[in-house]
């Protein structure tokens, strides 16, 4: 019988990485850059340079196709520039807005092409996720984990990806998905519970 860990909430706080959160001062400085770019498009370049690699990696994990990723990322930044005049600083990093556009562009691409989107997992990420499900190191469990991912809804998978495969803090996840931080934690906890049930059934 699979032992289910009950200390998930504590585990979440241990996993939280503050290195990816953006300070208020940095956000304020960036907002000034955004405003400058709103007035003069050529001034978008610093933002483009700053986030190109991060957005590229975000999209690449979901396509596993370098050229396709380059094209989608080009569309992401084009859209960002076109919508920039309507952007308003709301106390969240500018990157969160870019990630949302990227997420939508990826989803749109796979809807249009009716192709399957990729979920990229590195081994150490899978280990972290497995530890949340059960403390024992078990290759069989990891295989079941991968299979359980296939039964998640797209939004559920996004949360697992952002949290465990991309190691993003809850605050950043909340900003990207436009939900509250506590909501992000609760949803993640419920998804893990769901995955545990899936795995339990498969183990019987």
């Amino acid at each position, binding site marked *: 019988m699979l032992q289910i860990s009950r200390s998930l909430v504590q585990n979440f706080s241990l996993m939280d990485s503050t290195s990816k959160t953006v300070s208020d001062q940095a956000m304020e*400085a960036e907002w000034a850059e955004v405003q400058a770019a709103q007035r003069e498009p050529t001034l978008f370049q610093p933002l483009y340079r700053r986030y190109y690699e991060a957005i590229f990696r975000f999209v690449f994990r979901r396509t596993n196709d370098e050229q396709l990723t380059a094209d989608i990322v080009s*569309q992401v930044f084009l859209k960002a520039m076109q919508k920039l005049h*309507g952007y308003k600083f709301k106390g969240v990093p500018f990157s969160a807005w870019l990630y949302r556009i990227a997420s939508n562009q990826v989803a749109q691409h796979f809807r249009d092409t009716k192709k399957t989107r*990729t*979920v990229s*997992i590195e081994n150490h990420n899978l280990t972290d996720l497995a530890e949340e499900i059960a403390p024992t190191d078990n290759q069989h469990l990891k295989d079941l984990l991968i299979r359980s991912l296939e039964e998640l809804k797209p939004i559920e998978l996004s949360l697992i990806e952002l949290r465990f495969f991309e190691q993003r803090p809850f605050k950043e996840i909340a900003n990207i998905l436009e939900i509250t931080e506590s909501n992000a934690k609760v949803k993640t906890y419920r998804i893990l519970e769901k995955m545990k049930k899936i795995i339990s059934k498969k183990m019987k």
Partner: protein
Amino acid sequence: MKKNNYKINSNFTPLTPEQIGKHTDFEALLEQFKNAPQEQASPDSDAPVVKMKPTERPSRRWLYPVLAAVAAALVGVVMMVINPAQSDKVTGEEALAYFASQPFINPPIKTLKPDYNNNSLNVNQGGTFSYDNGSTVVVPPAAFVNGQGNLVEGAVEIHYREFHDYVDFFVSGIPMDYDSAGTRYQLESAGMIEIFATQNGERLTMNPGKSIEVKLVHDIYATADDPLDFNIYRLDTEQRNWVYEGKNKLEILPAEEAAALSPTEQATQNYEAQLATIAKEEKIAIDKIEATVAKPVAPVPPVKADKSAHVFNLKFTDDMIEAGNAGNDLDEQRVALRNLQKQYKNMLWQVAPNQPDFNENAASNINWVDMKLRQLNQNDYELTLIGTGNQMKVTVNPVLTGADYQQAMKDFNKSFATYETALADRQAKLNAAREALLTEIADRKRMAKMAFDKRYETLKAEGKDNKATEELIKHRVVNTFTATNLGIWNCDRPLPPWLVSLEADFKNNQEEQFNSNVAFLADQTNNTVARFYAKKGTRVQYNQNNKKLLWVVTKDNKLAVYRPEKFDDIKNRQRSHTFVLDVVDKEIETEEDVREILQF
């Protein structure tokens, strides 16, 4: 459970930065942006601008020959946009250049001289100075050196002043903006000081290693959820900038007045006050009810003659009756006594008890020639026996005997029954009146509760049920910091950029442009004053929703103002605006004159 169609890649290998870097091409993106149809949708809509079909996936490679053909023309267009030589736009650089050409501390009204607190100090001993508002400054011994770098001894003068609000900041001419790594911020202040020392008129500097401890008291207005996270900045007049010196230690003093309540708390308090008023009015009204129905007078039972007491057998005529204290007038008293004597022919007047001075012998043996009677109360009368050359006063009661007494008792019982009926009637009327009052009070309370419940729910629905609202609460705070140099020290924090930005022009009511080079703006929510280069085409920034005031100093040292209500004329998303300022025709002689004009 339904399986979604995902391709799990568990052997994911991330790309290197170099692999990613080769795809970056901002110039191509810029060209694509300029050539693509402009997006009108909201930033968060899902509608894509360019649909990507798999067979038509664009490759940027074919764009380059096209771009090359139009590059020269586009460069020209871009340069025209960047160079405003042909337009009225005032660039940020021009504005900065103007301010850089001016004295760094530039009081706008030169006739207003700064007002310092000046105190003497024995440098060898140091000293502590306390100011009226509670601020203190502690100067250590041996704190100053002169222009030659030599330690100063003996008496020095310490000059100190504080700046607390937008008027102080404006009059001082001290800039409230700050350059941090090339980005300009407006600074919001929690109090600012200037402190310097002189000896024989010569300015001194701080002895290296010494510092002044400052406790600056300030009233700050902030929302309930404001972290009050201020820093300490020192004004470097050589670098022409504020220098960050560390975090401010801010302590909120115990509230001298009640902190402002959230809207729901205020509504609750108002409701409770309303209930208290209703309760008070209820008590007053109930007390008044007693007076609305006359209380019947209880009949006095007849008094039987006491065989051991002295009695007088007297008959009074009207002229013997004097005005008494019984509440009715003299005529009524005479009529009443006449009727009494008529009804009870054998009525006697008995000496009232507890009159040790009554001389029974004298009363009986003296030949009294006259008498007077005065009613004292319901049952007591003052009898005055008048002789030739003497008189005697004694309190007497009318008493009855035999058949008179029995008849009187019958009459009394009848009267008393009538009285009891009248009393019951009165009580019934009082009860009815009280009932009506209580019903009215209950209605009022019920209406008040309904109104309160409705108001409370409305406020809750509007999210105004906690203190984290935009309402400003006043705090008295103490900023504690160490001044390592003499000069100007500020407890500040950089403000987020103000979101409204438009091209401005400044005119008076006669459509004439002002010759003033600087416009000032104060925002009621942020304790600062912003400066703008007041030329046509300059960019003015402010917060849409806060109450604000804009003004310039005219050539003849008057103030021309743009009042808060006029900002309502500026529409959302308006790109430019001519500020028509009203010149206030008042000579400015003191800072109080400025404060009066700029009050908002």
